């Protein structure tokens, strides 16, 4: 309840709802106008844009968006425009920007166009669109830098400039931009479409203001933000205080296959939340970085999904939240760090780190616990270029690599192929839409078996496609993997899903044709298995119509201990082809006998597995101390806590302040230390065997998968993905312990 806000004289719960619905409808209208006016594959067939309404200061009020981060980023352009143009803003102004460092969106491909809406000579609100334009110039078609580079070599970037000045269209500005891009006509149409959508939004706003009066609209906007803030603060105050930590790993900076880690601490105190990225790696020399707007957008994406999906997605959610994003790191890069890939790298993985941290926090409240989620899909893609079948210059990508499995949640398995938790309005093109515009023949597209992460609830399956160049000589391919060898985290003892992959099956078409002739199924797995595996990032690959091109997204992470998954659910998965019989046995301890379960062997195997887990060494012997961030392996007395606290399916802190297993009540340690030192622990390099889903083992051996089990009963209580040699992640500590730590 929002007593305070409702008590204020201005709050009108009826008109507020009317204005909210009107603005959201307006955002949809803008989106439709944008799609109608443009022919862009990205807009029409993939909905890669966001439309929003903002208040006079640039606070987000409503948005429809491909991703929540993208929607939030519109605010960046408004804030920078206010700062830059100050009193020089006039009715009829429309502002254009695409520089993520200075007033643009998440990455330079997102062209943001915003316009102020005036009440007399005062700005009352703004409308804006951020849209992914296919090409914004730069060295590489598609515009993502592959090798080490700086931002100056990436794309053309415009800081906020007036696209319309007092109603007068600036052809010079448009020309200055278009001279930098590869497909000026198509891009010109896109920009016209975006601007058309913004004009439409402006007109709608004016009509609304005329109907209800500027003062009332102003009051409603501020009350909407205040009410969301109040409701969110109240929600936060019901969650247990503490410091919660998570991490997300990216690989390969374009030249060196290093692991880059984003770390997030979520510090919850009363009705306040701090999202602190301190400890995140320094910015990379390659495409992995994002700018500050993405760091905040990543937090917003988490707030809008697992924390408060039922509250309006407006700036009020950020009111009780402080975001600390140290400069010069992956999430808040400084020039000249390249940022062309921000949307799918730092400005996506930041959310993943926050999700991991939040899962321990949300576990402490029964209603919030339902929404705990691991990271969903990520974006693996390749820019395929070459003339299309009509002889026109063309570059495009197969969206299959973005169609990753959703995370399992407390009460159900993850949905297959659903892209990101934050990609609310996204979808993918039809096979026929690709084939009519692009020189490609799809041979197979399906949910890939065994890609979903193991758990009491299984992660969603990844989508895979196998295709070949068609009616063209060849494709030149630029490869961008995500989570190829660095898996996501999982939840509450679940395991990560499969890594994503792109492969070139050289000469496979001969075999394909033979199989067709014989009427046999294509051995897609075999092709993929024996195919050429490009590195996580690279270019200069050539794929001909004799070759096969294989692309698969990431699998969703699992939730809870896979050994307690209902054997009937495993059987159902095997029958549906979601899980192979081998994986059923390996990951879930379910032994198949023909088409059915062998219940006796299953029970025996599960017992054996539990016994093996109980026999694992304790963390204090098995784990590195690293930089000391995991605390010391010395037991200590508990610090006072507000009461017992649930931290996961198998983990809680009891009323005395001790970590214990929720299955057998085995006591690990007090709340002042990291319980993982006293868990039965296994640490293995990340590999298909260790995580239980297909993923290549990194030759560098720099990433490990750890399983934390109860020495008492053998339950798999938690898992983590960590850098080799790194201390066990201290996912939860009471505020009192946090404050005692040396800074």
């Amino acid at each position, binding site marked *: 309840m929002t007593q305070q806000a409702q008590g204020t004289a201005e*709050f009108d719960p009826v008109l507020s709802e009317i204005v909210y619905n009107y603005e959201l409808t307006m955002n949809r209208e803008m989106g439709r106008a944008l799609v109608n006016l443009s022919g862009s594959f990205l807009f029409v067939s993939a909905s890669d844009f966001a439309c929003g309404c903002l208040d006079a200061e640039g606070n987000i009020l409503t948005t429809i968006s491909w991703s929540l981060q993208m929607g939030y980023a519109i605010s960046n352009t408004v804030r920078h425009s206010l700062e830059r143009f100050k009193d020089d803003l006039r009715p009829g102004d429309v502002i254009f920007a695409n520089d993520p460092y200075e007033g643009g969106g998440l990455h330079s491909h997102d062209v943001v166009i915003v316009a102020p809406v005036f009440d007399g000579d005062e700005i009352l609100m703004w409308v804006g669109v951020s849209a992914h334009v296919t090409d914004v110039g730069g060295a590489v078609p598609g515009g993502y830098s592959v090798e080490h580079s700086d931002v100056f070599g990436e794309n053309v970037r415009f800081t906020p400039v007036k696209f319309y000045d007092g109603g007068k269209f600036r052809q010079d500005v448009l020309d200055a931009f278009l001279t930098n891009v590869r497909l000026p006509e198509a891009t010109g149409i896109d920009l016209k479409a975006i601007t058309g959508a913004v004009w439409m939004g402006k007109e709608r706003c004016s009509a609304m203001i005329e109907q209800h009066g500027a003062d009332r609209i102003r009051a409603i906007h501020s009350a909407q933000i205040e009410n969301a803030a109040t*409701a969110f603060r109240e929600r936060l105050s019901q969650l247990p205080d503490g410091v919660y930590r998570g991490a997300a790993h990216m690989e390969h900076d374009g030249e060196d296959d290093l692991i880059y880690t984003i770390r997030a601490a979520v510090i919850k105190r009363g009705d306040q939340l701090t999202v602190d990225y301190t400890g995140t790696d320094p910015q990379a020399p390659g495409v992995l970085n994002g700018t500050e707007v993405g760091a905040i957008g990543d937090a917003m994406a988490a707030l809008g999904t697992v924390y408060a999906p*039922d509250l309006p997605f407006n700036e009020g959610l950020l009111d009780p939240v402080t975001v600390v994003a140290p400069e010069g790191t992956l999430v808040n890069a400084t020039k000249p760090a390249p940022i062309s890939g921000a949307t799918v790298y730092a400005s996506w993985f930041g959310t993943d780190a926050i999700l991991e941290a939040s899962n321990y926090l949300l576990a402490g409240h029964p209603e919030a616990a339902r929404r705990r989620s691991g990271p969903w899909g990520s974006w693996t893609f390749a820019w395929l270029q070459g003339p299309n079948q009509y002889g026109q210059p063309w570059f495009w990508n197969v969206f299959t690599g973005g169609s990753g499995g959703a995370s399992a949640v407390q009460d159900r398995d993850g949905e297959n192929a659903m892209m990101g938790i934050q990609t609310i309005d996204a979808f993918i093109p039809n096979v026929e839409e690709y084939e009519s515009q692009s020189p490609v023949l799809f041979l197979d597209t399906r949910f890939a078996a065994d890609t979903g992460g193991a758990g009491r609830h299984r992660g969603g399956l990844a989508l895979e496609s196998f295709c070949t160049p068609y009616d063209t000589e060849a494709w030149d391919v630029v490869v961008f993997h995500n989570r190829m060898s660095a898996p996501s985290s999982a939840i509450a003892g679940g395991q990560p899903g499969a890594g994503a992959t792109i492969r070139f099956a050289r000469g496979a078409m001969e075999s394909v044709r033979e199989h067709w002739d014989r009427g046999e199924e294509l051995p897609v797995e075999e092709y993929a298995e024996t195919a050429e595996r490009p590195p996580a990032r690279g270019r200069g690959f050539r794929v001909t119509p004799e070759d096969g091109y294989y692309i698969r997204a990431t699998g969703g992470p699992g939730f809870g201990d896979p050994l307690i998954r209902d054997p009937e659910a495993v059987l159902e998965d095997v029958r549906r082809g979601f899980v192979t019989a081998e994986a059923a046995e390996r990951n879930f301890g379910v032994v198949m006998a023909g088409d059915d379960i062998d219940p006796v062997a299953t029970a025996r195997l599960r017992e054996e597995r539990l016994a093996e887990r109980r026999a694992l060494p304790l963390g204090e012997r098995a784990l590195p101390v690293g930089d000391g961030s995991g605390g010391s392996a010395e037991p200590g007395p508990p610090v006072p806590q507000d009461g017992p606290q649930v931290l996961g399916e198998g983990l809680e802190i009891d009323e005395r302040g001790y970590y214990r297993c929720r299955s057998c009540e085995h006591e690990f340690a007090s709340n002042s230390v990291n319980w993982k030192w006293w868990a039965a622990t296994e640490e293995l390099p990340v590999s298909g065997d260790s995580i239980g889903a297909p993923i290549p083992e990194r030759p560098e051996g720099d990433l490990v998968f750890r399983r934390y089990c109860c020495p008492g009963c053998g339950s798999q209580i938690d898992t983590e993905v960590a850098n080799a040699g790194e201390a066990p992640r201290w996912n939860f500590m009471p505020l009192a312990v946090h404050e005692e730590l040396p800074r």
Partner: protein
Amino acid sequence: MRLGIDIGGTFTDIVLQESGGGLRRWKTPSTPPDFEQGVFDGIELVADALGTDSRSLLGRVDEFLHATTVTTNVVLTRAGERVALLTTRGFGDLYQLARMYRNQQRDPSLVTHPVPLVPREDVEEVLERVDYKGRVVVPIDEEGLRRAVGNALEKGIKSFAVCFLWSFRNPEHEQLAKRVILEEAPDAYVATSFEAAPLIGEYERMSTTVITAFAGPELRAYTGKLLSGLRERGFEGQLLLMKSDGGLGSIENTVTSAGQTIYSGPVAGVLASRALGEESGEGNLITFDMGGTSTDVALIEDGDVRSTSLQFLDRQALATTMVDVTTVGAGGGSLATVGPDGAMRVGPESAGARPGPACYGRGGTEPTVTDANLLLGLLDPEYFLGGDMALDREAAERAFAPLAERLGMTEVAAAAGVFRIVNALMADAVRLRTVFAGLDPRAFALVSFGGAGGLHCASVARELGMSRVIVPALASVFSASGLISTDLAYSVARSTKDLLGPGGVPVPDSATSMSDLFEQLEGQVRGSLDVHSIPDERTEIRHSVEMAYAGQSLHFEVDLVGDGTPGEESFARAAAEFDSRYAATYGTGAAAPENGYDVKTCRVMGVGKVPRPPVAQADGEGLGSTPLPVGSRRALADTDSVELTEMPVYRATDFNPGSRVTGPAIVEYTDSTILVPCRCDASLDGFANLQIEVNR
């Protein structure tokens, strides 16, 4: 003689066009799940009223016209036939993937794909492949095909959906599959995608084909029972079904394209509106059919019903040519709540028909729009449904009390809030609908029918800047009346990828391919029309294309005028028409005709025109007596009002043509109530429609 019957969830409406042209109407309760019983009951009712028996009545009916919700219900309740989906090998998961169309949930535990009508285990993959030009890449494996069909038959499946990639470019493989299925199982129901939806985009085509196979058998069974029942009762004429594309069609035709009947009922209402517009000289109409749980909105522009080729029903994609009806999930039963942000919310949850609004006294305890209307004095608890059903005002108050308390308002103020929000929601929906079509609602009149719309229509119109609302005379059986004036029509469309140069001159390849395609499509519709032996002078073949500026996605459907297969002249005029419509929507500067045009779809519609009944128009002059109110009550005078004001209450039966009242006022029909808000005038026109002028 034409007899029109529209079956709704609650009532079955009957309209009879007598030989003289006059329309008579009746209403009888629907009889789910055996809906045909309601039809037979209705016939008895009509026979009684005419002082005859059903046999001699039916013996005189030439055409029995029928709008039905059978297919819609089958999809909504998932009560269709178990279906096997045959698709191209390697792509058996695409139906489940559903392009990742997501339910726009932000809560990760609630995100879902559309729930498929065919489970994955009933999807059979068949080796075959056709490319984007229709060339066969892999010939169909007939043996494998027979195996797949055999698998399904073994499971006891009797209905098949066949959808192969690019089948609309080359249907040979689907044709073979259909043949094989019918060889193996002559009684099977087979829906092929090249027949159900020959349009680009395999998911939408597949989904449409599945809906057809899912609902078709039920439609076949229903129409079979209906027809044999009618025949037993002496009917010798034709039974025609209302289709979503706005035409009537034979049973055989509609059963094989069952997806085409999904919007049967709502479309009949839209066509009735068009006929109404023709009478009253109003070509631009927005139809507004507000019922208990949802509201249907459609557009009529210059007398033409707007069509679409893609709709979603319960998140299931349906890609057929159909009258573009948008359904909003708000109606009289929508629930009012307080959101977590403190704002009042109306819908999308609904009390439905059971328990219904609290004031219905059927156990509902949550506040609904209808309860709000009662508290606002807009409904008379003693005269609901002409007094057939008493409303419980205290129950409505009890339902509103907690909501009002949470918001710190009086119950009446909370109810006024509900009234205002629901009106704004409707206005948003209409606005979105018109904008999506590139139109301005202010140039339109609103036609309101459906039981719950009368109290809201004028306020919604005002919200949109519309100045005219028409409440039809036959409002309560309006959809059924639409059947009477509907033509026989069959439409077929196919996706294509043809080009017109600047000025609309087809490039040489396209000229040939389009003329071949049009000939083929025309052959199909003529084949369908032949069954009805319509004389040539009443047969009309219309050609149209969906076109766009080269490289853009916004496409309009444009008619190709002229006789015979469209030639250069038709295309030139189509291009000019497209230019002007585009400019009207997005401004002259936005057009890009210099790059030429893409033709995305070719469509042929064959129409068998029925003679329209002459409509009796009363001479309005001099008749317009000012009606006397039957009383007055305190009610909400307008959307913005905060207090109730005393206003006169009239009975519609006291109006005659020319009668005029000034708002605020209430006009009560037996089955609906109309609010004439402040600054509005209402008058009865010569066709007994209530015309409301809405002033700013």
